[in-house]
């Protein structure tokens, strides 16, 4: 019996980890090819120059829900209004804030209630009214504030914002994110280059913790100097520069982050917008948009750009990280419960045939398999049948593989003049990558498993407020 279990486990783990490594190698190949091509053909300064005065540049709406953000709302909205793009509007959705968020907005931007002909294209919690400025300031004229009753989720507030956008494309973001000044040009360009209809553009995001911000604009990008955000920064870099780039290369993008992503308004509305009940609302909306396009037989593309367009504050403490990861874990489980019919369906092309099975096998099941691995090693140790030499060799091989991935990420990032001006700051990434398998990874696995458990037991879960520590601002 012992031998049978042991043999089964040996081979299962061998093939599983072999599969992960192989998939990573394939992803590296795809992303490397894409990055190389982009490096040759893309000139960001030139793009900005020609789009700035062109009548062909499409308009973009920025939708940012706000709930109890009185401390930072004015600076954040000001920063959104100061973005560089010829035709954009900012839609702030006050999601029934209990503090002075709305009052501050009204006072600072000289807002008045307007009889906006609101059409509920996507169902939301009751809408109250729209505010627009009476000031002559051209910057303020770009602002619309939607006031609605609290829906308890970001999805519900975002949907209310989508209902009032007046442009063909919209960007969904968080009001406290810092958006790169030229981010809108960067997002719209791949869309204008494509021969196929682009329904969403995903741009890279990084951690705001540690950075220096001046008047709502990024002054200096620095790595987070505390462990949890540093780990998450590395995780984001790896995900955007390798994983998402590779999925975008095969047009099988799984997720466009809720923190910053550009969407085709028409398709998003027809797909039903964000699902207020979902814990992975961004992933869910992409699935529904793809479903809509495939069901109606229209070709589509979802693009990933490696440029950093947005910085968001990561969980500063373990408690906040736990909440975030449990929600993600639960969201992933919930996602597969809802969209399981898309799995292995040729109708959904690479998304249904490659991306979804990949996520199910190597992301959804990974925490469970890892846990069983830990338990099996413990059992071998207790029964005295563990070959220590082999175990250490395999461990160090996987550890080295993780380091190789980090080096690749650093190489890609440096190629795009990415995160850090001072190259020595990349050493923080190497530090994080060295510690990650011992500290961060087991914690993440644990939180994901707890998320799954909560979903299975049907335990009620609330979104909870994301505790922010704030960022450094330069004088």
């Amino acid at each position, binding site marked *: 019996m012992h031998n049978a279990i042991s043999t089964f486990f040996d081979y299962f783990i*061998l093939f599983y980890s072999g599969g992960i490594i192989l998939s990573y190698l394939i992803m590296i190949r795809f992303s490397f090819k894409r990055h190389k091509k982009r*490096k*040759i*053909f893309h*000139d960001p300064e*030139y793009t900005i120059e*020609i*789009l700035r*005065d*062109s*009548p*062909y*540049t499409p*308009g973009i709406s920025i939708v940012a829900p706000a709930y109890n953000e009185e401390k930072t709302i004015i600076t954040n909205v000001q920063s959104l209004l100061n973005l560089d793009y010829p035709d954009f*509007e900012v839609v702030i959705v006050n999601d029934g804030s209990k503090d002075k968020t709305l009052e501050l907005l009204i006072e600072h931007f000289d807002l*008045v209630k*307007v*009889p*906006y*002909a*609101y*059409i509920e294209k996507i169902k939301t919690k009751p809408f109250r009214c729209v505010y*627009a*400025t*009476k000031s002559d300031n051209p910057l303020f*004229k770009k602002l619309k504030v939607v006031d609605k009753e609290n829906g308890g989720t970001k999805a519900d507030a975002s949907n209310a914002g989508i209902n009032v*956008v*007046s*442009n*063909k494309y919209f960007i969904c973001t968080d009001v406290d994110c810092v958006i790169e000044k030229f981010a809108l040009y960067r997002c719209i*360009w791949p*869309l*204008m*280059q*494509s*021969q196929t209809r682009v329904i969403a553009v995903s741009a890279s995001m990084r951690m705001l913790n540690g950075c220096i911000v001046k008047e709502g604009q990024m002054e200096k990008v620095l790595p987070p100097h505390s462990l949890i955000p540093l780990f998450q920064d590395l995780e984001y870099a790896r995900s955007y520069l390798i994983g998402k780039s590779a999925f975008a290369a095969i047009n099988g993008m799984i997720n466009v982050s809720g923190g910053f992503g550009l969407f085709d*308004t028409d398709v998003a509305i027809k797909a039903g917008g964000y699902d207020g009940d979902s814990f992975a609302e961004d992933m869910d909306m992409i699935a529904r948009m793809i479903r809509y396009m495939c069901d109606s037989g229209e070709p589509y593309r979802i693009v990933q750009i490696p440029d950093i367009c947005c910085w968001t504050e990561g969980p500063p403490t373990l408690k906040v990280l736990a909440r975030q990861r449990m929600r993600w874990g639960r969201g992933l489980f919930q996602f597969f419960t809802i969209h399981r019919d898309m799995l292995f369906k040729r109708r959904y092309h690479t998304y249904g045939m490659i991306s979804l099975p990949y996520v199910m096998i190597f992301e959804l099941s990974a925490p469970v398999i890892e846990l069983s691995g830990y338990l099996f090693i413990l059992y071998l140790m207790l029964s005295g049948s563990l070959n220590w030499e*082999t175990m250490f*060799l*395999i461990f*160090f*091989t996987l550890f*080295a*593989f993780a*380091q*190789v991935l980090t*080096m690749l990420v*650093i*190489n890609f990032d*440096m190629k795009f003049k990415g995160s850090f001006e001072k*190259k020595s700051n*990349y050493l923080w990434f190497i530090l994080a990558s060295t510690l990650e398998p011992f500290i961060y990874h087991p914690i993440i696995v644990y939180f994901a498993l707890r998320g799954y458990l909560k979903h299975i037991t049907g335990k009620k879960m609330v979104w909870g407020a994301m505790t922010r520590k704030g960022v450094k601002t330069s004088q």
Partner: protein
Amino acid sequence: MEYYSLTALEYIKYYIMGIYYTWIDYPPVVRMCSLFLNIAVIYILISLLKNYIRAVKEARHNRKQKHYTELYEDKMEKVALSPNKMDPNEIAQAIELPVNYKMNVKKTSLFVPILRDLYHKIEDDENFNRSNWRNLTIALRMPTYFEKQMQSRVLKKRLAALKNITDDNTDLKEAVASRYLYARDEKLRMSSRLHVARYGTSYPFKIFTEDTKGYVSEELMVKLHNVFVYRLKNNLSIPNLVRWCNLYPINEKLRLFAVNEIRLLQSKKDCPELLDLLKDSKDEIFSLAIIKCLGELRYKKAEPELLRRYNYAAAAERGVIAEALGNIKSGNPEVIDFLVKDFKETTRAATKVRLLRNLYDYGAAGKAAYELLKKEAKEDDIRFFDHVECEYIDSRKYA
């Protein structure tokens, strides 16, 4: 006793043998792991070294660039703004170029960003002396530099050269840029075509109409529009856009682009021909583009045709016709009746708002019809009237 010292290669050899014999009795997976581990360590070390070298080189380049900018930028600006015509030798003396200065790829490339920034800074200055600018680029040997870059084997360098020539406004022989008009690589081909289209003297647009199978992306539209604007600004010819609509019906996007350009460049002289095209057109998208164009150019003679088309038009076309009629604002009472009728028939909120906006802006008669409509409006439609009347809402942008 004789000592034998090992060479580096022998060390590597013994190291590999050591690993091989350590894991010889183990399963293949374990042996593969040991091999991978070694490769990974080597890769990591090489990457670290490479990144370090890259960082050092970049820092050195930045220092040099800064030094050159400090040394030459002001002097170059003075030359470019000087009212006196100077030849390349005089300019070389004025900006204190080294006596033995000659084209060197590394050194000359440092002038590229300086020239680009300077050109953007003084391009619209009334004292800008174009002749001096041309001679300045000659003094710096920029044409030779770009010619060399254009001949490079590296695709990126060729593309960058084409772009930089435009940025720095360097005079380059048309023949040099024309070399890649039919290049296999699409990006290079398009860059070259756009460059020739921008600066070409004879009829540089032929290439776009010849290539009927070429895809016209929005990117190309943006760039071509940019070229047209530049040429109009510098009194250079632009193509006959109506001919583009007529001669090449195969390339759908090119036709649409031509109609849009007529609208954007406000080329009213093309309206009669566009109207004829509209009468003959059976292509819905093409017709919509023409209707929009005629409306924005306020071509009054198009009104009877638009009213005639309305009766059998599809829903999408009706909205565009209504908007075009609203834009033309001829004062024709028939148009007002038509706008009112369309408002009553449509169910789309966006179309309703657009129609009301047009009525509201359609002079006294239009406003009277608007008020009448408001009195008769259903309770659910009142919000559209309030929306249009509110001065703080831009109802033209309602979707």
